[in-house]
């Protein structure tokens, strides 16, 4: 094209990451802010929405979705998916609760066991996906059923109640004004962000997701990247399972049903393409917050929970459509 033929090569001025963040996510950022404004102004919720208690509560509730959404972001950029996260939530919560109640493990150990459960399922997913050509969709669909099945088998179908205060601290406690899950969320986000943006593995995820064939030619160990990402996703789900079980005072085999869909929704609304190779964590965070604020708002308005499904789906569609329009204009 005539334009690029004679331009001088530049690039010494890197765009500030903050500016880039706003530019890339303008559509969904506006959606989130608009949503918050509506809830602040709407008489049904104006007094209850914008209070620190409600905001922190909302963050506490959304945090579990955001843990798995972090893992899901990586998996989707890689060109795969993890449908087993919801079931891992159930399995890790039940086993961890069982450790406390049946084997009298100290809480800290039980937590580690729960995360380990997630790690092991992720490991299994990772090995099969990395070593065979079976698509991630199928593998994780299978483990989704197997893991939840194990949760039912282990608990006999009924919840495992944990009444100790230390247990409830993780999901329901505070450190200062911050709910514990929110603090964990900060740590998770920073860790995920560092991995994706500041490590070689992060770059390789984009490479394998964008062009796996080229990644082979580049000498990237494609199998290792696929494996590690699945393990990370499993760990995140294990963590989410613990926090959720803590908040519910019990490990439940029915926990986390549909959680994978909320995570995928957060990732997709955040602008990551299901085709792989592109996407940012920042978008996922905003996507997750949109869903969280939405759930919160609908609850405050006492909307029938069945309608919440409908509204959530419609909003996701709208957010993605707006983003699609925005990208079409710049093409």
């Amino acid at each position, binding site marked *: 094209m005539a334009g*690029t*033929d004679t331009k001088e090569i530049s690039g010494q001025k890197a765009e500030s990451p903050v500016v880039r963040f706003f530019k890339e996510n303008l559509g969904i950022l506006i959606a989130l802010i608009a949503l918050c404004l509506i809830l602040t102004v709407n008489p049904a919720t104006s007094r209850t929405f914008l209070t620190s208690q409600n905001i922190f509560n909302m963050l506490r509730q959304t945090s579990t979705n955001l843990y798995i959404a972090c893992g899901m972001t990586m998996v989707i950029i890689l060109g795969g998916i993890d449908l087993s996260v919801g079931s891992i939530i159930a399995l890790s919560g039940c086993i961890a609760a069982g450790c406390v109640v049946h084997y009298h493990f100290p809480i800290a150990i039980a937590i580690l066991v729960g995360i380990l459960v997630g790690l092991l399922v992720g490991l299994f997913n990772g090995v099969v996906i990395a070593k065979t050509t079976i698509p991630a969709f199928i593998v994780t669909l299978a483990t989704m059923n197997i893991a939840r099945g194990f949760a039912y088998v282990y608990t006999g179908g009924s919840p495992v109640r944990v009444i100790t205060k230390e247990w409830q601290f993780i999901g329901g406690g505070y450190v200062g004004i911050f709910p514990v899950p929110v603090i964990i969320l900060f740590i998770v986000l920073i860790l995920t962000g560092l991995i994706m943006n500041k*490590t070689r593995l992060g770059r390789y995820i984009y490479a394998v997701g964008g*062009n796996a064939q080229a990644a*082979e030619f580049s000498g990237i160990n494609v199998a290792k990247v696929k494996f590690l990402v699945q393990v990370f996703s499993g760990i995140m789900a294990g963590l989410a399972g613990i926090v959720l079980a803590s908040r519910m005072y019990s490990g439940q085999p029915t926990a986390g049903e549909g959680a994978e869909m909320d995570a995928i929704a957060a990732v997709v609304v955040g602008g990551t393409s299901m085709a792989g190779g592109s996407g940012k964590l920042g978008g996922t965070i905003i996507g997750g917050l949109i869903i969280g604020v939405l759930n919160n708002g609908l609850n405050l308005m006492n909307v029938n929970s069945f309608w919440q499904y409908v509204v959530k789906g419609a909003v996701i569609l709208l957010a993605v459509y707006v983003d699609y329009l925005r990208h079409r204009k710049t093409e």
Partner: protein
Amino acid sequence: MKNISKSFPGVKALDSVNFELKAGEVHALLGENGAGKSTLIKVLGGIYIPDQGDIYINGTRAEIHDVRSAQRNGISIIHQELVLVPQMTVAENIYLGREPGKKFVDRKKMQVEAQKLLNTYGMQIDADTLVGKLTIAQQQMVEIIKAISYQSKIVVMDEPTSSLSDSEVSYLFKTIRTLVRENIGIIYISHKMSELGEICDRVTVMRDGQAVGTRVVKETTNDELISMMVGRELKHYYTRDYQKQKKVVLKCENISDGKMVKDVSFELHEGEIIGFAGLIGAGRSETMKCIFGLTKGSTGNIFLDGHKIRIKSPTEAMRYGIAFVPEDRKSEGLYSLQSVRYNSTIEVLRTFMKFFSVNAKKEREIAQTYIDIMGTKTPSQEQTIQNLSGGNQQKVMIGRWLATKPKVLILDEPTRGIDVGAKSEIYAIMNRLAKEGMAIIMVSSELPEIINMSDRIYVMCDGTLRGSFDHAEATQEKIMKLAAK
């Protein structure tokens, strides 16, 4: 086509272009990437509506506002990327969208008609075959037959020979001559100037959205056409300063991949460029993949600076200082959605990334260094690489591997699908690298390129080495003789 202009946001793709095609003529459209050839063709085909200008067919103004109206006016375009449905049969593809029959598809009639067409043009293809099972050359024939079945009077072929072997190319030319005899006018878009002399009557050169001039092929020279395409006189297309032979840096003995490559042996000296010639499917790229550690189960001995080494993966190959730029940058090299910077530094992450920290400044410097060395034209490092022209994309690819500071650089079809100006620049860079001591292996299907750039030429056929020539004694005929089965 008179006075055709078309603009897109920020770019004037066509600027008052005049183009004329005679019945029964093969008229070539020549130009660098971004010159406007595809845009002009898309206007003709009804894919784009021009901002200004008119199209006249047989003297009368034609109303072309979409693909169907273009087809109704007798215009057919055979795109570079074939648009057949692989899971359907030849007959089904030919009649896609206009299947015969009133309520139900009359499959028998469809097949009979399709077979008639195929036979008329001497194509030994069964109308009942699944298109996916045909070779690219045969699929192309099906596209041509499809165009004919639309009673097209104007057929546009976009880079028709890019994936064809030499025998398939002659077959294509035979078909074109048949079309010409039926007074069909053909617009032939190609990068390969060697083909123009063989099949084209006239050629129009485009540059920067303008039609620079039209010549009769027999009355012009390659040099004139090149300078029209580039806008300046390209005095030295090839740059090669041969030097005295230095020491052997790479020696390969009996390389086999267990499938088709058998016992390939050769030597590579410092500062030397060796060319690997051969037909498509000769096994050259496969041999290079063995050397680069991409083929499990490959055997043979490799000596680097006299020491025997084992290469079991690309990472090991890189550690020994070997770099490999694959032939198909789109599917084997580019990370299309990422920036130029990302694509430039992906092989050398360790030099600016440690633990959880990225030395962004160092990364930008590295990327800039190789942008400068290669002369890549990009508005910035952050530009998404798929927005660059083919030539600049290839420069980024080569730059990416140069960043690993290799001793041995393997280039597989380094100038494929690139415009003339960029090709010349890449030759100059290869020459400079060789002078600085790098040892280069160039796999190429373009004989002039191989003959003009290599110190020594190895010819492969069916996975084996058939012979080699010093550049002084090499001729196209000698090479082709060894390359043919």
